[in-house]
């Protein structure tokens, strides 16, 4: 990227806040391409135990064997060139605990993203990931006292193997899909969290992370274990600076909610429109537990993300609330999976998508009640809003039901903003663009309420920004 380009974008930083980057001077760099050597290099740099290295190498084998899922997914996946991607970069720094230890340019990046401010406000702990490694990590002392563990993936596996190893790669095995295998082979960064029995976090934990190197895949790995009767809300927000060539982001997020635990996982994603965002997210809910995914996808070239809940214990609950916004050149291929494996389990999916210009949004869902279960319920609603004449939306749910007294209902609708609504608002003095923005915000309003206040304010602003220039 030329200097003048950086200049241009620095000026417009207020309106497009993810759109800036800093010189790259990485202390460790695994080079371009993917081979066993790359994996060994990553493992060496991280000084990992033998079992972690073996896990990575096995995953690489699986990755090489698996086909792309193009028998059902978009052919755009074929444009990912795995041999041109950098799989690991690091400043070579340990995750730092105090703000002073954080390098200046990293600080500056976070300053722009507003992290210190947010922390001052209400955050219990911040795990900010700059490229591969956590650059800044701190928790409030009282959380530590309660025994909450909130660390990066490497630190988690090294320091607390007795806690994390039993669940690591169990909710999403490396064999799950090609990109889960890729992540399992190359993962770095992400958050490993353990909430002890009975601990109920009143405030959410939050991680901000960004992609900052051209051609650089980011493969963070998150594992959250909520022990019996505990509660946690975790938030991740992503903004990525714009680059000329496609960037791959392929995360794996595993949630484990033990008996009567509650996990709420909130994502707000605003990738730049050259990012392939191929993420596997799944939660396991034990007896009486609840796993809730709240997911907002804006930006990226192609997002494929289907948060799922395996309802393993009696009375478990699963929920996915998602908003997707696809603009020109973007394909939001999102959805949800609910796998019912016990009696009295309930699940709820609400998905709203907005397609602008030639944007395409796709809902793919799976609801599975494969066994002789009793009293399970699923409700799925997906609504699509099409803004322009050439906008596109698809819906592909798959529902399998067996058993006694189970109820499954799925409804989908497609609509546009009505001319009357726009006319009415314009009569009241709004411009057509403002009216459209208002109507779109109204369409997702019900879901926006599910987000914490800061996020819903930011989301409304993001939607307004995306709607700019879509009419007229």
């Amino acid at each position: 990227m030329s200097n003048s380009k950086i200049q241009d974008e620095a000026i417009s930083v207020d309106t497009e806040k993810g759109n800036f980057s800093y010189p790259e001077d990485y202390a460790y760099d695994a080079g371009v391409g993917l081979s066993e050597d790359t994996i060994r290099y990553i493992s060496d740099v991280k000084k990992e135990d033998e079992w972690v290295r073996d896990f990575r190498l096995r995953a690489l084998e699986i990755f090489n064997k698996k086909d792309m899922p193009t028998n059902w997914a978009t052919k755009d996946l074929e444009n990912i060139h795995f041999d041109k991607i950098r799989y690991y970069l690091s400043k070579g720094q340990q995750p730092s605990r105090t703000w002073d230890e954080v390098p200046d340019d990293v600080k500056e990046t976070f300053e722009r993203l507003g992290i210190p401010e947010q922390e001052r406000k209400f955050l219990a702990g911040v795990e900010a990931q700059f490229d591969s490694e956590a650059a800044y990590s701190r928790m409030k002392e009282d959380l530590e006292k309660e025994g909450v563990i909130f660390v990066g993936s490497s630190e988690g596996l090294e320091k607390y193997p007795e806690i994390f190893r039993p669940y690591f790669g169990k909710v999403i095995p490396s064999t799950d899909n090609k990109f889960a295998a890729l992540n399992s082979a190359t993962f770095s960064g992400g958050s490993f969290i353990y909430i002890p029995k009975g601990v109920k976090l009143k405030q959410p934990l939050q991680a901000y992370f960004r992609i900052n190197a051209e051609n650089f895949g980011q493969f963070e790995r998150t594992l959250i274990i909520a022990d019996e009767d505990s509660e946690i809300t975790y938030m991740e927000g992503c903004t990525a600076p714009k680059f000329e060539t496609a960037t791959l982001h392929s995360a794996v997020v595993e949630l484990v909610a033990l008996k009567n635990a509650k996990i709420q996982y909130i994502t707000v994603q605003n990738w730049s429109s050259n990012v392939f965002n191929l993420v596997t997210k799944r939660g396991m809910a034990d007896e009486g537990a609840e796993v809730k995914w709240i997911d907002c996808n804006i930006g990226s070239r192609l997002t494929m993300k289907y948060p799922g809940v395996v309802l393993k214990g009696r009375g478990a609950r699963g929920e996915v609330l998602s908003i997707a916004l696809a603009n020109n050149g973007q394909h939001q291929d999102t959805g949800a999976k609910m796998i019912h494996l016990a009696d009295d389990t309930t699940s709820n999916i609400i998905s709203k998508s907005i397609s602008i210009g030639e944007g395409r949004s796709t809902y793919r869902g799976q609801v599975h009640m494969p066994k002789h279960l009793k009293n399970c319920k699923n409700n799925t609603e997906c609504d699509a809003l099409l803004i322009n004449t050439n906008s596109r939306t698809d819906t592909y749910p798959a529902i399998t039901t067996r058993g006694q007294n189970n109820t499954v209902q799925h409804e989908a609708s497609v609509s546009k903003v009505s001319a009357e609504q726009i006319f009415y608002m314009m009569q009241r003095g709004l411009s057509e663009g403002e009216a459209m923005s208002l109507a779109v915000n109204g369409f997702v309003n019900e879901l926006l309420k599910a987000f914490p206040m800061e996020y819903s304010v930011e989301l409304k602003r993001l939607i307004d920004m995306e709607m700019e220039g879509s009419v007229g």
Partner: protein
Amino acid sequence: MTSLSENIMNKPANTAAEPIWLTERRAAGLAQYQTLPPPALNDELWRFASVGRLKIDDYAPTGAPSPANAKALLDRSDLVSERAGRSVHADDHSLCFEGLSEELIAKGVLYLPIADALKAHPDLMEQYFLKTTTELGSDKFFGLHAASIRAGTLLYIPKGVEIEQPLVNYYWTSAQGTAVFPHTLIIAEDNAKASVVDIFSSETKENEALNIAVSNLHAATGAKVFRKVVQDWNKQTTSFQLDTTIAGRDAQVKNLAVNIGSERARYENQTRIEGPGADVKMYSITVAEDNQEFDQRTFQTHNAPNAVSDLLYKNALLDQSRTIFSGLIKVAEGAQQTDAYQTNRNLLLDPTAEANALPGLEILANDVRCSHGATTGNLDADELFYMMQRGIPRRTAMQLMVFGFFEEVIEKVDNEELAENLRQLIHKKFEAKIA
């Protein structure tokens, strides 16, 4: 008995002198059948279906039934008595074509066996015969049909001609291990009106059979066509039905399918709307029991604006049966003001039955009203309780509710005698189970 593959290789179905275009279409079909791979597990268009169970070479075309047999089948072809015409086929041999009035013949209506139509109206047949198929994954089987088709019906209704009573086609299987390829071609010209009933039945409960049926319906401007299909094969039958409807401007088409029989039945039904103002309805009811598998794939394609399509598929499942409903609505770019709806309701009457629903939408125009809904559940406990409170025994109440579930579709049949016969067919199947 030679196997089906050997049969079509060595003894092409076109033993009679057939036009060159037909020979070519048959050859193309055969090539398609031979080169395309069989359905595989990871094939989206066959998702959830039990692929690989079909052994096509267990079947072969068979000879005509004995006169006594034929007589018995003719007598049993009586589901609709008030009709404009009737055809009866057994094992792909035409037993009768009768009843078309002199008046309709004079008006130019054609109601003929496919073989006769090929001789008498080659131009018409070249334009329509074996030209259309579904895009739902069965190209291989359409190829086999094209290579093998011997029997079927042409119904041609000229411009402005209206036929009030239905034309009723019976397709029977009789001989053990027979392979049949029934074909119904309906061409309704501008403002023509007709209704057709296709009935598929087996002579006994035991005769094993393979059915690969194709139906192509062309409704030109303002045409009104109502096609009803009753699939009542025995449970030793493997059945494929590949049905298409092409609707022109302001055409009104209704498709109604009643699915009762077969061990494994794949029903593909595709509607292509090519003219604005068209209105196409697709209804289906299915009763699945024992180890039956009903694999239903539908496709509503809107290529023209201002048109309506509406689909309602209702399935009731007993025992270890399975149903798959996979429906897709596709609204092409520029097909604005489209109203397209799709509803699938599954009633699980036994905990071991399995209903799969894949209701899909692909929308490329913004000014549309499209929705789909799929529900799966058991009989409503409150409703059952209410009836039992009123003194109705539990089993009777359950029957009433199941019949009520189907009545929504049955009442659209628009022919009281046929509707009643269909009720009997369904009730018969249920009474043994719920009683």
